[in-house]
């Protein structure tokens, strides 16, 4: 257990502020993951000639990107200025990097979805001479989107970790692994829901790999964190969500392995996996917000690391000095 730390706080008031983010943000984390994973599935299907999986994954990615984009804009204090995100590019700002990733991903994806919709409409979209251009661009655009797919699924972990929010910051080594795994299993789950089992083989494999990655990365992450900073992941509603997330993920994987070739089972397992991913995102989000409310989550880990550095003889880097 953690040794009892003695400290005084300022009337138990928070030290850091919670970002003013509503549930649109965890919803976006979930949708961005679905979009990224679906982008990869679409590219794989494109390269291996699985037309149904390709179409469904592209359409899923587009829906997720669209809804996710709306969620992001809705959460801004000045939604009318959302385009200021693209006014500059800053490597030090994961929010900036992510906005560009999202834009690049959506660019390629839109072309592929245009082609799919045109095919669905029996080539009746009024494209005129542009149709051959669209068809020619479709393949390269799918690959372009795929290049930005994994970054789209993973950057959100850096976005949360690169903050002063104690619990998020303490996850900074391992959260990317949790998030790409969660994105993989969720997008694979969605593909299993939308696509007949004959073409959904890759989704089944990706789902199982995603679940293994998710469970392992989550455990490794919790072990490596400062024990006090990790507490919010286990307590309260965040703890409940994360426990159910793991259960659903494992159940989904078992379903895939046991009966993934039967459509009804595949659909139920796919839904369970999507639920697991949503719970992971909302749980991690909640835990971080909670960790800003109690100054203990700031003070205890910081005092511990300061004491550890002093014990190791590093005394020159403290913000508090005798002179």
């Amino acid at each position, binding site marked *: 257990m953690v040794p009892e730390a003695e400290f005084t706080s*300022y009337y138990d008031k928070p*030290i850091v502020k919670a970002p003013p983010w509503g549930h649109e943000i965890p919803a976006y984390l979930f949708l961005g993951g679905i979009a990224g994973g679906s982008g990869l599935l679409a590219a794989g299907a494109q390269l291996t000639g699985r037309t149904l999986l390709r179409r469904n994954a592209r359409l899923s990615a587009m829906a997720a990107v669209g809804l996710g984009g709306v969620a992001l804009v809705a959460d801004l204090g000045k939604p009318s200025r959302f385009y200021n995100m693209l006014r500059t590019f800053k490597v030090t700002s994961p929010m900036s990097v992510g906005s560009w990733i999202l834009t690049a991903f959506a660019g390629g994806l839109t072309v592929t979805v245009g082609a799919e919709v045109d095919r669905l409409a029996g080539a009746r979209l009024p494209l005129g001479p542009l149709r051959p251009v669209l068809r020619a661009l479709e393949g390269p655009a799918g690959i372009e989107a795929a290049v930005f797919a994994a970054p789209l699924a993973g950057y959100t972990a850096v976005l949360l970790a690169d903050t*002063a929010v104690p619990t998020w910051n303490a996850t*900074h080594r391992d959260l990317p692994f949790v998030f790409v795994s969660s994105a993989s299993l969720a997008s694979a789950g969605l593909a299993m829901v939308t696509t007949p089992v004959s073409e959904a083989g890759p989704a089944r494999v990706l789902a199982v790999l995603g679940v293994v990655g998710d469970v392992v990365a989550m455990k490794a992450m919790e072990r490596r964190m400062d024990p006090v900073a990790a507490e919010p992941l286990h307590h309260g509603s965040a703890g409940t969500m994360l426990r159910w997330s793991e259960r659903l993920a494992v159940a989904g994987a078992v379903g895939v392995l046991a009966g993934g070739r039967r459509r009804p089972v595949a659909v139920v397992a796919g839904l369970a996996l999507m639920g697991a991913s949503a719970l992971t995102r909302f749980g991690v989000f909640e835990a971080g917000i909670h960790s800003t409310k109690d100054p203990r989550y700031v003070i205890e880990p910081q005092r511990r690391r300061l004491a550890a550095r002093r014990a190791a003889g590093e005394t020159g*880097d403290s913000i508090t000095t005798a002179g």
Partner: protein
Amino acid sequence: MEQPPRKGFFTDTSICIGCKACEVACKEWNHNPRDGDLELTGMSYDNTVSLGASTWRHVAFVEQGRDAIAAARTSGRALVSLGMPSVGAPASAVPAPDVAPPDTPEFRWLMASDVCKHCTHAGCLDVCPTGALFRTEFGTVVIQPDVCNGCGTCVAGCPFGVVERRSDGTAAPTYREGHRKGEQPPVPKRGVAQKCTLCYDRLLDDETPACAKTCPTTSIKFGDHTSMVASARERVAELHAQGMTEARLYGANELDGVGGTGSVFLLLDEPEVYGLPPDPRVCTADLPTMYKRAGVAMAGMVAAAAVAFWKGR
């Protein structure tokens, strides 16, 4: 044009009398709307509670008895004996500790005017995606309210809980807007992040920031950052020489987790007693690690997808 020297504050809490003139002057000069609903908190004389979008100076009040005073003196002495970077009179030249004015041994009242630290490595500025936050020619950190889109990333990026996105600025029941009695004046700059600008507009006119100008005890000093740090070191040595080993500096070390702060403080107890983080670290210090780990994770995801298509029948 020549770059002016970095400007900063030195807030000497040992001579703060808790008059809150700084809070008032700041609000007036910057047209900051009222925060909250004028409730009494029961936190000593502090009804302001914290820094925020519309509160850029906050005076903290802490009441302490004999044990807390002794503990503060001990923790301060421990700092001295750590041999931390120190300039001025060495603390070993200290006479007997009990002559220390101005508190009684049984009770003391800590008062401290907090403000944005204008960090050397500012988390808020680093993570801002729009470039609304920028470093001025005075080395301070300022938000351009007409560029900010209110994404709130800076709020999460500040290790001191300073910057905040401005909402209505008020709570019920006085939410009605207008200029009549019982109404709130209209709240400007809603939905964008707001914090201390170190009176950027005044600095441009060679004026002292409103809080420092108004402070009747010179607890808030303003000037070139290097001279602020120098006077902070002189002052802490002076207090040590008077036996007040509880005195210590906060933010004067450029090797700390935020590269030192533009606003330096002299405190009389541990930072967390005043609501300050004990070991802040700018979040972007670990960003290279985060990007590396994320890169590996992304590669893993692509590999998993490749395996899936290779194996998946």
